């Protein structure tokens, strides 16, 4: 039973780390700000879920489980909110999405 718990939480931790790393790669490799926000925000959420639940399985019942769940819920609420607010600010500040940039190119080409 304990071995099974170890294996499950090991899998959760490793997949969580995998998503974290892929998000980090995405933040550097993707071409446009909004795609980068998307990479960071989505992988952040899934990494938090996986890693924290991996740790929960290793914790004896008690206040530490409550703290871990508090961290989980808090990050699940605030992290996408922060990304959303940031993307909204960027939009407000005049950054364009990729499709708009392409359309802009075509419009520039069209009058020729």
């Amino acid at each position, binding site marked *: 039973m304990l071995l099974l718990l170890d294996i499950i939480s090991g899998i959760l931790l490793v997949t969580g780390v995998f998503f974290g790393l892929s998000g*980090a790669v995405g933040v*550097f490799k993707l071409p446009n*700000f909004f795609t980068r926000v998307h990479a960071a925000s989505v992988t952040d959420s899934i990494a938090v879920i996986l890693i924290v639940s991996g*740790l929960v399985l290793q914790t004896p019942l008690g206040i530490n489980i409550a*703290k871990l769940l508090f961290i989980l819920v808090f990050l699940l609420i605030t992290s996408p909110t922060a990304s959303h607010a940031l993307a909204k600010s960027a939009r407000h500040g005049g950054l364009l999405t990729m499709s708009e940039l392409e359309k802009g190119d075509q419009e520039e080409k069209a009058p020729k």
Partner: protein
Amino acid sequence: MTALYAVVCIAILLVMAIALARAFYAPTVYDRILGVNMFGTKTVLFIAVVGYLMGRPDFLDIAIVYALINFIGMVAVLRFFEYTAPVD
């Protein structure tokens, strides 16, 4: 389990380093904020895992503080960003 925690720690440190690099060299100011925010959330996870690695689960209190402060800092950056004219 300890070896696994150690591996997870190192991997999260790597993610933190990449987020830090994004915050150092950002094409737009929003990318910089993104890097800082990502660094913060990964730090929360890092503290939690380090607590388990060292057998000190009371580190979780500090992880909670990090999560709070990270969000408040983010809101403050967005708020005061309205007042200052963008440079780039």
